[in-house]
């Protein structure tokens, strides 16, 4: 299968195919920005309306857990970038290796996330089910913050899970020597997606964990 030197039949050249798929991915990421953006717009609007509640709400999250997740994700982005680098050099084994580490870090992130959710569940901090764990001022507005917390992080986690799945498929293809220095589009495309999900988290971290850290 290593002799994939012809582009798909409806493309005139490899360049064209590569450009189409990369631009396609960027276009898709553009839709993702607006997908997350709709929720972030709601988040910002309520934050302006209820600044105190947002402070109280973010105090319910552990800053250190959030920071740890940020570091894990950044590390996975590094290994992802290195996997793409390996693909550019046509080093199939290195691709598999870096992707494996990336996937492991991604799963590590999800485990931390699950641990955090577990904490919220145990402390009755899940609006819509049981929010009796919080009994201080601004009760409904703080619940609203926690709703945004859950919704944004769940949305992000779903993207992570999809990313882990995609990277697994790519790793499998790399193991079968599917990619070469000329033809490794899928690795780059998957990389773009992974980095994007990382970027989303880079914004979620201050928005959900750092609002009330100074108090």
């Amino acid at each position: 299968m290593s002799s994939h030197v012809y582009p798909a039949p409806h493309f005139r050249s490899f360049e064209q195919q590569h450009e189409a798929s990369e631009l396609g991915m960027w276009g898709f990421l553009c839709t993702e920005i607006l997908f997350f953006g709709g929720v972030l717009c709601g988040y910002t609007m309520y934050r302006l309306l209820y600044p105190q509640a947002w402070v109280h709400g973010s105090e319910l999250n552990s800053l250190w857990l959030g920071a740890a997740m940020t570091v894990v994700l950044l590390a996975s982005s590094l290994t992802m970038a290195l996997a793409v680098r390996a693909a550019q050099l046509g080093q199939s084994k290195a691709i598999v290796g870096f992707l494996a580490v990336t996937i492991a870090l991604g799963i590590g992130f999800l485990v931390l996330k699950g641990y955090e959710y577990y904490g919220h569940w145990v402390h009755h901090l899940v609006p819509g089910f049981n929010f009796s764990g919080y009994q201080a001022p601004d009760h409904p507005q703080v619940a609203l913050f926690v709703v945004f917390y859950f919704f944004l992080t769940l949305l992000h986690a779903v993207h992570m899970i999809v990313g882990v799945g995609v990277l697994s498929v790519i790793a499998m293809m790399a193991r079968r020597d599917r990619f070469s220095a000329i033809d490794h589009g899928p690795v780059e495309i998957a990389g773009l997606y992974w980095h994007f999900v990382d970027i989303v988290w880079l914004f979620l971290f201050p928005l959900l964990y750092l609002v009330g850290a100074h108090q």
Partner: protein
Amino acid sequence: MTNPEWITEPLAPPSYLNNGYGWRSWFLTTDHKRIALLYLISITGFFFLGGFFAMMIRLELLTPQPDLLQSDTYNRFFTMHGVIMVWFFLIPSIPTVLGNFLVPMMVGAKDLAFPRLNLLSWYLFMIGGILAFSSIVIGGVDTGWTFYTPYSTTYSNTHVLWMALGIFIAGFSSIITGLNFIITIHTMRAPGLTWFRLPLFLWSTYSTSLILVLATPVLAITLVLMGLERAFGIGIFDPALGGDPLLFQHLFWFYSHPAVYIMILPGLGVESELISTFSRRNVFGYRYVAMASVAIAVFSFLVWGHHLFVAGQSVYIALAFSFLSYLIAIPSAIKIFNWMATLYGGSISFETPMLYALFFIGLFTIGGLTGLFLAALGIDVHVTDTYFVVAHFHYIMVGGMVVAYLGGMHYWWPKISGRMYPERFGQVSAFLIFIGFNLTFFPQFILGYLGMPRRYHAYAEGFQTLNVMSTAGASILAVGYVLPLFYLAWSFFRGPLAPTNPWGATGLEWKTASPPPTENFEETPVVTEETYRFPVREEMLV
């Protein structure tokens, strides 16, 4: 295919239509032309379903009293009419049928950039459509197509989630289609086909795709939030929990206002092609018309607040939205004036597509001007949420978009089917639609200013005369729509064979056989001149 004439006809040259006959060759095809046909059939189905609900609404409104339908049934019917027509007919119609068929051919490519995603988008569309439609089977939805909170989240006890899921899935079909067009137009143009040599249909399809890609995700996330609110009472739109129902309206119209331009922009593109071909003249002010499409796409994102003038939005922001809503009239006006200038000095013939094109200019002008009434704050306060809005919207959507769609279908029908449609039937149905349409919707402007609110099941007796006129018009309109269904279906199998370029048009799609071969062009065409290069008489300078 057991056609007795089959044997006497000369053996048909290989085309995308006779390249395989089994169900797999259709349902697993990645050929953009076959996918366009799949879309054509499904969209036609949805159109007549939506039309059925429209007809029931009109029949109910024949009398002021509720008689044909009870109010809860009536509410389910107008919701169904809106949802089907907006998401499963108007938004996908021209892009997925004509766009799918023509975009690769117009850029001189073999297929769209992502053929398999293209097929996926049809499946998503069908799943979404069937889910949304099946909600009527299990009990219906009574929120109206706008799903305003908190009615949709807390008070309606109908199958809102079911329908929202259908629309959510269909949204991804839109996104994929839009991305596919954008990438194709960016990366797959034939050698020599520069941006300003693109047919205007491509410019408008490109602009439409921009909106599809940038707006649809917001609808998707809004529906998810609404669904969660409804399922778990999370409070994002619920005032009792600190939420703001207006946030829903903002997010919804951030999508839905641009969405009405998704519906009309492709129609504007078709219009330019028709006017040019049947006047045998290049489109006057080509660059302005092209740029007007892009301008409309961009401005469409800046005006959504004009749906919220009386909704409790800030007075100041209403001023800004009103101002911007006026501005968007300018690119539309530029288009109309340039089409009129294109007629000047042309050699005009009146085949069915051209009749539709001329009707389009008239109806779109009326629709656009009444849109200005709604942009005027002082008037809007009185006429918003009345039949005036209904009439305006239908002038743009039915008078504009559906008329352009039918014009385009007739125009490209020889290319799609390889057969000619019966001209006389075409002209008759075009006139029926024009007359029926105006009779249906013009009285509604008057009703609106008189103060008849929309979505009313029972109304004051003084409104009856105008409502009867409207229902009578709707019956004529229905005949006008059913006729093409029959004669086009007939001509698909029995119509006279079409030549490669029956109208003497200029686009790349007319340079390949009718119907085109699977790979569109035997070899990649090379473009050496501007589009719309018709022969001209030099001696008569103006």
